[in-house]
């Protein structure tokens, strides 16, 4: 764990990587949007997902059909069960033919085999021909991105690599360096006897391989050398030729915001070639290695089979706030969130077990996934399996499994902590905590409240003749850190005529426990809260924390579905749960008449759970606008604040790096106030933003014309 944190710190120290990745990411989102103009991404990715689902269900059958068809057209198809088998096949082939020089076009499958190292050990010269890959190979590094392997290098660094490794002086001018690469690599192409490539798709119906490139290096790799070896993962199969269309429509758009790559090559069987000595071969040798290496095992897994739908577009990397900071450090051979999952099956569970910790669960990748994969869900499942296998760390066990589920103990703990923190509280802010100095460094966190929300409810205003009763599920952060949000919620709802009840038996919603991979403990917390909330008949259950909302609305029914009684209770509750802003916006006629104009320039921060899971990001904006606020959207609009619950404790440096970017976006909007609907984000953003950071409920409460007397 600490080893990982050290790696993270090291990666963060290289600002060049995050600079390149964040800049690219900002442009990417806009360019991608344009590339999808006139196309319906939701429908397209659904099509891709369907095709790939069929592939996964018929994997073996399609592999056989592909083998038959490709063989009929003159290819040799080899089914490699493991990386070793694939490597050995290629090395044997080279040896048998006396081949010494190999050119390669970019292929993640061969990275997975660590093929270059292996072949070089056998005495072969192996040259990567994708410009980025070649630079990486020259410099002895590892690709940092699925699509753009050298994105982390500057032109000066590239010139330096050329100077050092090729012995040629070249100005750090991109056009000149590209020319130099063309010249150098052309020699390699012309002298090579074997070309190794990957493939983006393999069509079972026709035995066709589909390869997408922009540079054209795959065309040369598959044309010039007299022997062509293709390494393709089983999951790249699709049943029919027409199935490649949706993938061709999605892959370039999602990968590099292109309508189509410069080249799409369909190779079916063996074709003519001329070898480096000028001999014409009517039928060159085509060897296709269908690689398993964990894929069948993955296909047999009821949960993780979903990851085989991946078409390697890297959209999930491009939008991932963690990847943007860490680059290749968030992953192994395959990087980013999807990399973590693939690593678990293709290269090493242990490595993946560590890496999954780095996902902060922001859900953004799911929005962009070209194959409609629930990546955050898969990472959560991986985490559960890791925990089931190895348990959580001792500190986490005490906190999450020992204290959190025992509501009284937990609350006593919080009250005690609230008193003990006094020495570190200055002007209402927490400064330099003794055990977590990184957490408070350079910022002022809100302290625990001396009087939690649950002790304040007796003094809250109540409407005279209420329209009805609603329950308030406060969650820990509002109860113990931001009782002012609870009070604001109450003031607004009371002014609208609703009686707010805060059932005392409620405790933590359990999300941290769920997130830590402890579904059993989470289920116990769910039952406690359900019992507390079910006691009182009410119109709705209001939350002002989207994470609690997600837990109550989606996770409780999920985790309790095995128990009929609890499942029913969870289902009934889930229907009643609604976030504060949505509840108020639905009943806007009850509030708008009693709202004085909001005279603030406001920018709205999208909390991940509110936007991506609840899809309730419009309601607060509508409310603020209808209330008269001047709304200034920030650019880019959707960035995570880096809170991620326990993530901020585990990787404080990373969390702060992500927060810094958020802060830039907020400040760039020119707004004086940042509005949000999540106390977690408020905790994070409020600690660094010099303007005002407020929950939407607070802004509304401040603008009430006739606040009810306390």
């Amino acid at each position: 764990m600490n080893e990982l944190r050290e790696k993270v710190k090291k990666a963060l120290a290289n600002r060049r990587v995050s600079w390149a990745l964040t800049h690219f990411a900002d442009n990417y989102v806009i360019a991608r949007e344009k590339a999808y103009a006139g196309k319906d991404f939701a429908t397209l990715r659904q099509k891709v997902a369907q095709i790939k689902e069929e592939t996964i269900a018929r994997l073996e059958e399609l592999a056989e059909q592909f083998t038959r068809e490709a063989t009929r057209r003159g290819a040799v198809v080899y089914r490699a069960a493991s990386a070793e088998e694939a490597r050995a096949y290629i090395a044997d082939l080279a040896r048998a033919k006396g081949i010494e020089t190999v050119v390669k076009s970019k292929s993640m499958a061969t990275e997975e085999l660590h093929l270059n190292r292996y072949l070089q050990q056998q005495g072969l010269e192996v040259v990567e021909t994708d410009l980025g890959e070649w630079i990486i190979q020259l410099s002895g590094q590892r690709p940092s991105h699925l699509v753009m392997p050298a994105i982390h290098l500057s032109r000066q660094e590239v010139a330096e690599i050329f100077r050092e490794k090729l012995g040629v002086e070249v100005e750090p001018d991109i056009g000149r360096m590209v020319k130099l690469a063309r010249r150098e690599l052309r020699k390699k192409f012309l002298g090579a006897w074997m070309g190794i490539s990957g493939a983006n798709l393999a069509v079972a119906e026709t035995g066709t391989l589909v390869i997408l490139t922009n540079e054209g290096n795959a065309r040369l790799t598959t044309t010039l050398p007299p022997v062509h070896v293709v390494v393709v993962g089983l999951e790249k199969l699709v049943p029919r030729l027409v199935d490649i269309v949706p993938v061709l429509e999605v892959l370039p758009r999602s990968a590099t915001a292109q309508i189509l790559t410069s080249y799409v090559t369909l190779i079916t069987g063996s074709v003519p070639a001329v070898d480096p000595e000028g001999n014409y071969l009517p039928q060159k040798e085509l060897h296709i290695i269908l690689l398993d290496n964990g894929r069948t095992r993955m296909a047999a897994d009821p949960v993780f089979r979903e990851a085989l739908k991946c078409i390697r577009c890297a959209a999930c990397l491009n939008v991932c706030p963690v990847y943007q900071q860490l680059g290749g450090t968030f992953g192994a051979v395959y990087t980013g969130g999807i990399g973590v999952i693939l690593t678990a099956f293709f290269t090493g569970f242990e490595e993946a077990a560590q890496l999954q910790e780095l996902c902060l669960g922001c859900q953004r990748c799911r929005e962009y996934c070209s194959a409609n994969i629930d990546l955050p869900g898969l990472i959560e499942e991986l985490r559960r399996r890791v925990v089931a296998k190895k348990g959580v760390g001792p500190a986490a066990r005490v906190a999450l499994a020992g204290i959190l589920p025992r509501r009284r103990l937990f609350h006593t703990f919080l009250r005690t902590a609230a008193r003990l923190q006094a020495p570190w509280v200055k002007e209402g802010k927490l400064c330099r905590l003794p055990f977590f100095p990184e957490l408070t460094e350079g910022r002022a966190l809100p302290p625990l409240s001396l009087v939690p929300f649950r002790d304040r409810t007796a003094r809250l205003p109540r409407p005279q003749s209420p329209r009805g009763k609603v329950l308030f599920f406060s969650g820990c952060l509002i109860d113990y850190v931001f009782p002012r949000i609870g009070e604001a919620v109450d003031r607004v709802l009371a002014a609208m005529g609703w009686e707010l009840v805060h059932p005392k038996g409620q405790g933590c919603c359990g999300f941290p426990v769920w997130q830590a991979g402890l579904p059993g403990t989470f289920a116990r917390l769910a039952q406690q809260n359900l019992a507390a909330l079910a006691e009182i008949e009410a119109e709705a259950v209001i939350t002002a924390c989207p994470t609690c909302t997600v837990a109550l609305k989606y996770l409780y029914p999920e985790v309790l579905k095995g128990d009929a009684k609890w499942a029913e209770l969870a289902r009934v509750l889930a229907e009643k749960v609604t976030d504060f802003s949505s509840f108020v916006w639905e009943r806007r006629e009850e509030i708008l008449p009693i709202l004085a104009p909001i005279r603030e320039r406001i920018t709205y921060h999208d909390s991940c759970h509110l936007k991506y899971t609840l899809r309730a990001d419009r309601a607060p904006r509508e409310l603020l606008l209808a209330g008269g606020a001047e709304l200034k959207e920030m650019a880019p609009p959707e960035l995570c604040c880096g809170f991620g619950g326990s993530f901020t404790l585990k990787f404080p440096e990373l969390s702060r790096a992500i927060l810094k970017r958020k802060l830039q976006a907020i400040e760039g909007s020119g707004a004086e106030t940042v509005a949000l609907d999540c106390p977690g984000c408020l905790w994070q953003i409020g600690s660094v933003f010099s303007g005002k950071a407020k929950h939407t409920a607070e802004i509304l409460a401040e603008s009430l014309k006739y606040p009810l007397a306390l």
Partner: protein
Amino acid sequence: MAEREELISAFSAQARLLGAEVYRASSPGEARALVKEIIESTGVRRVALASSPLLASLDLIPVIEAAGAELVKGSLREQAETAEMGITAFELAVAETGTLVHDATELDTRLFSMLPLVHLALVPVRGLVANLEEALNYWLTRGEIPGYLAFVSGPSRTADIERVLTVGVHGPGRLLIVLLGEEEVCSHE
């Protein structure tokens, strides 16, 4: 016909967006004049000409010579290596994506489109299709799919250094497309 015109203008716009240069010729005579002009203006001296019924029907060798260039000689590899311009024919042009499609199983077609820095592509307008699916169906309905089917959209490009777009990295840095009008359509197979 109106529909074809729409496809042509959509194709041309999209291909230009990708950095290709698009021309039109409505008769074989016009096409020959255009090819001559293109060779002259690009200033290439060594040209490789692929064999194809379409290209043969245009009788381009005298045109190349008249433009002051010469046809490269030697083995196919030598030709492709030394040529500054490759001339090849395409069967289809995809309007939506600005893509050219050809059966490049024959080695000369393949090498001459890939290796030289300038690629002159000729495609008959009756080969225009709306989208990728139509293009694939064209091949599917003609029986077996060719051994090497190539889709070309604009010149060879890279953005691997600092995300700066640069053309001509491994393949052609210039792609010139001549759309051949209906009338001249030659004894195509």
